[in-house]
Structure formats: structure tokens, C-alpha cells
């Protein structure tokens, strides 16, 4: 069935779309902010949506902050939001290990202090965070002491990533029972001013290559992130809108979960990318075609404030 897709959202269509949904999920980087700068009009959009009775959630693959840290950042930028509305991969990975993996044991963590904190919040201890430079010679590396309570290797964004960490992960993973979990596969972590640094995807790929196995990935486009929100708040996919800037994570998540999808062009993906997927006719790519697009989410404002 040919459903009309990739339509410019403007005029009356905006109000029509917003009236048809009860909850709106926003990605963060490239959608409501870039680095430490809010996208112009974004706080007003979020706040107006809430005033209009919509539920708003933030769903981000970025694993460097806890829910609390995100709430603080949101507040500082003028967004009216609470901790409970934020779903980052630090929090969701901890939830995944707790509720899906039902992990009994510790985690070898390549990741941030935020991830460490979220794990501890669900009662899971970790080893490994922080700098870990190489010492000794090659045979020492194969014989690094392993904590027998470690039952999973978890990989998130880690600016202290090093060969030694990769090595430790490999040693733990030589036990086939040891789980391998990744927060996300994004190849870049966006910063302000259009800059970017290598993303978690690269670190995860290094671990997967060395260990010759694939990780279970928690973040978008895996439906787990949506499940997390939906289970806690009873969302109906048919009445939920996903707003994102990346076709292969945000939009694909939306498609995978039966949500309506809106692409904003203030981030990574371009309209040309979207059209490309649409014209490809390839079933694997059609999930990356958004229902609608806008140049910036600020375009939603008139319909909300009018």
C-alpha cells in the first residue's frame, strides 16, 4: 500500500498531526539542542506542547549523562522537563541489564561515570571506568586479572577508551557466557559548532571485531528504548510522534515501533538522504523514510501558540 511519505509539514497539516497524537518523543542532539546550545525556538515548542496537554519525552542514544544530568541540562536551557521524562542510553542500558538480561553479577564497563551511576541505581556494580593505560608486556595483557563476578561487558561512550580496555573486554568475552551489550552504534558524537568526535559505534566495533561476535545494542533503532517509555507511561504507538534528526536511528525506531515520524533538518540527516531511501524501493530502507519533515522544530510553534 503506497502511503504518502516524506511530506513537508506546514500549514494546517501541523495542527492536524499534533491533534492526532497524545505523546511526542524527541531526540536531543541535533533536534532540541546542539552541544550546549538550544536550537532556536526549541524550548518554546516543548513547553507549548505540554501546555497543550501533550506528554513529552526525550529519547537519546547519548550515554554520557544520567537522567538527572539531562534534567539539569534541560532546565538550564529553559526546557520545562523532569528527570522521569528523559530516556538516555545510560539509564536504558541499566534497565535492560536489570529487566531483560536479568543480570546477576557485575559489569565490565567501557563507559562514562554516568553509566556507572545508572548501573548502581539498579543495583549493578561495575569495574573498569576511568583511564586505563597500557603497562607490562604482551603476555601480561592476556593474563590481566579478571573479576570472576563480571558477567557482562558493556560498551558506551568512553573518552578514556584505550587498547588496554579493549584487551580487558576481549579477555572477559573469551567466556562465551559473558554478555556483550552496547549502548548504541552512532558513529559520531555531535558537539556544538558542527564539530563531532568518534561515537560509541567505533568503540563497539573495535570490541566486536576483536571478540568476533556481535553486541546486543540497546539504543535506537532498537525498540527497547521505546518499550522503556511505553511500559512506564502506557503509550499507544498510534498516538505517538517520534521527532528526530537521524534516519537510521530516530526515524527507524519510529517505524519499527509503529509511531508517526517527523524528521527535522537541524542535525545529521538531509532531505536528500530521506528521498534516496524513499526512491530506493528497498524494503530495508523504507523504514528510514519519515512521514513528515521540517527545517527545524521551531516551525511547530505557530500551530501551538495560535
Amino acid at each position, binding site marked *: 500500500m503506497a502511503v504518502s511519505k516524506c511530506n513537508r509539514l506546514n500549514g494546517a497539516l501541523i495542527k492536524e498531526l499534533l491533534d492526532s497524537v497524545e505523546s511526542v518523543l524527541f531526540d536531543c542532539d541535533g533536534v532540541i539542542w546542539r552541544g550546549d546550545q538550544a536550537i532556536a525556538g526549541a524550548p518554546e515548542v516543548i513547553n507549548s506542547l505540554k501546555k497543550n496537554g501533550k506528554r513529552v519525552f526525550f529519547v537519546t542514544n547519548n550515554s554520557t549523562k544520567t537522567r538527572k544530568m539531562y534534567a539539569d541540562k534541560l532546565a538550564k536551557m529553559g526546557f520545562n522537563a523532569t528527570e522521569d521524562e528523559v530516556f538516555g542510553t545510560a539509564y536504558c542500558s541499566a534497565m535492560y541489564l536489570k529487566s531483560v538480561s536479568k543480570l546477576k553479577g557485575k559489569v565490565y564497563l567501557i563507559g562514562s561515570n554516568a553509566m556507572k551511576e545508572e548501573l548502581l541505581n539498579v543495583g549493578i556494580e561495575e569495574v573498569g571506568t576511568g583511564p586505563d*593505560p*597500557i603497562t607490562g608486556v*604482551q*603476555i601480561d*595483557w*592476556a*593474563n590481566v586479572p579478571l573479576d570472576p563476578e563480571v558477567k557482562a561487558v558493556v560498551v558506551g561512550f*568512553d*573518552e*578514556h*577508551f*584505550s*587498547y*588496554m580496555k*579493549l*584487551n580487558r573486554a*576481549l*579477555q572477559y568475552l*573469551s567466556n562465551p557466557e559473558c554478555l556483550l551489550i552496547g549502548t548504541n552504534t552512532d*558513529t*559520531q558524537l555531535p*558537539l556544538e559548532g558542527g*564539530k563531532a*568526535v*568518534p*561515537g560509541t*559505534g*567505533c*568503540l563497539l*566495533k*573495535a*570490541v*566486536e*571485531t*576483536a*571478540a*568476533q561476535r556481535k553486541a546486543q545494542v540497546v539504543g535506537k533503532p532498537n525498540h527497547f528504548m521505546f518499550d522503556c517509555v511505553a511500559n512506564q507511561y502506557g503509550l499507544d504507538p498510534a498516538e505517538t510522534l517520534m521527532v528526530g534528526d537521524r534516519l537510521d536511528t530516530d526515524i527507524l525506531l519510529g517505524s519499527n515501533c509503529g509511531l508517526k515520524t517527523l524528521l527535522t533538518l537541524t542535525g545529521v540527516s538531509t532531505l536528500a538522504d530521506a528521498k534516496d531511501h524513499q526512491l530506493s524501493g528497498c524494503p530495508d530502507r523504507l523504514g528510514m523514510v519519515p512521514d513528515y519533515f521540517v527545517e527545524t522544530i521551531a516551525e511547530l510553534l505557530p500551530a501551538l501558540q495560535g
Partner: protein
Amino acid sequence: MAGAVSSKGCQKIRGSQIRDLLDAKRYVLFDCDGVIWNGETAVPGAPEVVSLLKQQGKLVFFVTNNCTRPRENYVQKFSRLGFNDVAQEDIFSSAYCSAVYLRDVAKVQGKVFVIGGNGVFKELRDAGVPFVEEETDVSDGSIYDCPLDSEVSAVLVGYDEKFNFLKLAKACCYLRNAECLFLATDPDPWHPLRGGRVTPGSGSLTAALETATERKATVIGKPSRFMFECIASQFGVDPTQSLMVGDRLETDILFGANCGLDTMLTLTGVSRMDEAEGYKDSDSPEKKKFVPDYVVDTIADFLQAQEED
């Protein structure tokens, strides 16, 4: 449909079969780790095998993906482990071949940003290829804002135990320029150590960089053809008169297949007979290239071939 059209290969050979095979070969290429030595221990009989082949007038080459040493260190290792008459010219390591590639094939202008160790640095220096050496404990700049050298026109990634996020970030910045070359010494995802343990290989570091840049590296080492082309250009080697002996199906045997050489798997290293047979029984034509023509338990079996009449 069970089985492919021809299920040849994986032929375990001994004695006169080995002798007949070797009689037809003028050039023998050996991988090192797991074939002629394991760590600091020569495979028993390996030094005698090499001497014997040379006495028979064959040209013997050593083709290794291991980029951690310069060739002159390899010469010392050969000598230390009892191999006589192995000259630097006989050794083709991925570090050496990367330097040759940069100098003679890419004809690189400008500097090379290296993620690697002394093995690579020395070979680049010897080849006269300028490079930028990343100091790991210099904290000028962070991953978010690092100073770049404007003369860098190529990135070479190899085994680097000092690999860290800063190096990854810098390499990515350089590779954002499509004109900047992207080379990898070898694709090995892990390296075997004594006692069945493993350590992450160059391939895992290359994978990180490929993912970050969404670019594919040009790989110098096996199974890519370049190391053979290096040998052939220096010694005029005829593939049909050559035998590649290795222990890793996915690198050595595939390398041999890619270069049109006969291939022999020796079982003193990484790959096992059942793995080779698994590839042989596979329906996928791609997998056929991993199947060795011949298999020996150890290259010391070559000596036995000489003893039999």
C-alpha cells in the same frame, strides 16, 4: 544439493607427496607466527627446513602481518631462534610493505599520521617517508579540540598498544579530507598468544577508524595481494612455481588464493583441520578460497620427505 562441484583441497600430505610438491616449486613463502615459530620458540625442525630449501636452490620468503618489529629486528630473531642465512631482503612484513606502498605506489607527498609502534616508525624512517608520531602522554588539546598537522596527507593504522581515544579522534579529523589516504597494515582482528590466549589485533583498531569515518582502509597485509606484489616486483616470482605456507585460513590461505599460489596449511598455529574442512564443505564459492590445497601437521614434515627414498 550437497557438496560443490569439486571438493578438492585439504589434502593431508606426507613423505614423497611433499617431496613431489616441493620439486615443482622454486619459491616458498612462509608466514611466521604459528608456522616457523611460536612466540620465542622455533617450531622444532623449522630452521632445518629453511636451510634445506635454500640448499635446494629455492628462494624462501617470510611474509608476516606482524607489524610490531622492523625487519632488522626480525633478522635478529631469526638468528636467535637458530635460523641461519635469513637476510633482511627475504623478510616481507606488513610494516615494511606499508612503507613501500606509501613511497612507491601512493607516492605520498606530505606526512603520514601513524597509529602504530616502533616497527612501523622504523620502516617509514628507512623508506624516507615522513610521519607524525603521536605522543600519548602529551596533553596538548583534548579529544574535543586537538591541533592538527597541516602537512598530513595519509593515515596509517597498525597494531598499537598505546591506542586511545585521542589518536582515534585525530585520525578521524585527518580522514575527513577525502584526499587523505587511509591505510591499514593488516586486518587481523586478534593475535594469538601462548597458552591459547588472544590479544586485540590491528584489525580491531582499523574497524574503529572505519566506523568513525565511514571509509574503508586500503589494507596492505594478507589477504590483500600487495605483499606478494612487493615480493614479485623485487624477485620476479612466478605464482605457478610458488607455495604459500601458513597457519591462518582467513589470512595466509586466502592470500595464497588471491595471488594464484598453491597453498599449504600447517597445523602448528591458529587454524584447525576441522575449520579447513568446514570451508571445504561449504556451498559458498567465496568460502572455497579459504580451503588450503595441502595440509601438514608441521613444516618439519618436509624433512621427513627428504629422508624417504
